[in-house]
């Protein structure tokens, strides 16, 4: 019975999405007013508007989740959970507030919940599939390089990703949003619900830890 119900829901969602994509115009520039209109429509029960919100923000949400969690499957599950939370608590969103800041805050909280569930050990390694893809991309860009040095470089990158996962959650979130996602300090502060001074301190500390980690790698590399 549950399987039948789930299948029906999936079919309805598929039909809904197909119709919505045919009806919806191309996504305009992501402005605050654009999201304000979509949020207002979604709060009124317009599911097409909610799907439009997902289309406009899914890349950023998935990117943050992947960088925070380190693998593709967890990032996908986290992204689904993020949008389900957004839909659930959309009525609590205050008009005039920055929707994207609210969305990214939910994303960070969901990732923290995932990390807490999986434990530190589960976050220590990035997904091997992603690692292989990155290796292939780098190899494509560095065709003339020495294969041994390429392998060594890939090992360095993997260790840096592990170093990122070993950071405290708040510092990791601040570093991901500021240095990897390219948010300004004020946007990071808004997404994390803290002050810009705190964000600067967290980002500075995280950079120092990453640099120390890289220095250790360089020393190991020099010693070998």
């Amino acid at each position, binding site marked *: 019975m549950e399987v039948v119900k789930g299948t029906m829901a999936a079919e309805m969602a598929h039909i809904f999405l197909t119709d919505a994509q045919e009806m919806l115009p191309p996504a305009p520039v992501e402005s605050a007013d654009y999201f304000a209109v979509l949020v207002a429509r979604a709060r009124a029960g317009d599911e097409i508007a909610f799907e439009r919100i997902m289309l406009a923000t*899914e890349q950023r949400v998935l990117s943050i989740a992947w960088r925070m969690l380190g693998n593709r499957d967890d990032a996908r599950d986290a992204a689904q959970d993020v949008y389900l939370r957004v839909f659930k608590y959309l009525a609590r969103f205050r008009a005039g507030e920055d929707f994207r800041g609210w969305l990214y805050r939910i994303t960070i909280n969901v990732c923290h919940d995932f990390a807490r569930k999986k434990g530190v050990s589960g976050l220590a390694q990035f997904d091997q599939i992603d690692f292989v893809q990155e290796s292939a991309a780098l190899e494509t860009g560095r065709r003339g390089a020495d294969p041994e040095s390429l392998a060594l470089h890939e090992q360095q990158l993997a260790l840096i990703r592990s170093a*990122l996962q070993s950071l405290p959650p708040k510092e990791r979130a601040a570093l991901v949003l500021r240095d*990897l996602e390219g948010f300004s300090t004020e946007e990071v502060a808004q997404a994390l619900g803290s002050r810009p001074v705190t964000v600067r301190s967290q980002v500075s500390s995280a*950079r120092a830890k990453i640099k120390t980690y*890289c220095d250790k790698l360089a020393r190991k590399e020099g010693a070998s």
Partner: protein
Amino acid sequence: MRTLNCKRTARIISLYVAGDLVGAPEREVAAHLAACEGCRRLAEEFSESSSLLTEACARPEFSAEFYSGIRHAVLGEIVSDQMLAKPSLFRPPWLYATAFAAIVIVSGVMLQHFVSTRREPPRDVARAPQVTGQPTSPLSATPSPRKKVELSGTQSAPSNKMPALANPRGSSGHFERVREPFALATAQAVRDSRPQIQPAKQSSTSLGSVALETSSQISRIEIQTADPNIRIIWLSPRESQEPDGTIHDQDHPETSNRK
């Protein structure tokens, strides 16, 4: 412009490299780096580690199916949640209001029926027959003045306990409730005064609507007039057989003994 030492520069140099410093702090760090070889090398290391981090965490390319799978899963779960939640949580409020009103109405009707049933007096037809209706005999409909009996003494006392007699037409031809104790006392008095009357066989009368009370020897008919203090009591022995063999109808008012 304040001159920074290496220790203070090392604390904020990562912010300088990332472009987070503006204004005077930025200029102070830049001036110190221009003069300090060690801090300049430190800035280069920070820049290199930042580049490595960016390279290591470069966003992978997710396929369109990967994104659409997320959307389908989210919307499917939303739809299924709504389908499951509606029957239990989101019924229209008017449905609850209608059900509540129906319960109240049914409860009120049942309560009223119960109260009315409790207030209705018990009917004991055998002990207190109440005959309503028009008398079929012209004699009973218009009783003669001779039939009127003024009750006095102990016999009038029970009349005070008589319930209110409903006689909307005010006609004396309507017969009302018969009180058995009163009737029995009257019958006993008649029996005492006329011991020669033979016991009646059965109570029989031609007045179908007249209240009847039968003792062992006489037949008694009570007629309550419009005046509650006046009651006509008609006592007659039952059919008696004369010595000559003829049977006289003792119930006929014209031929019966009257008191």
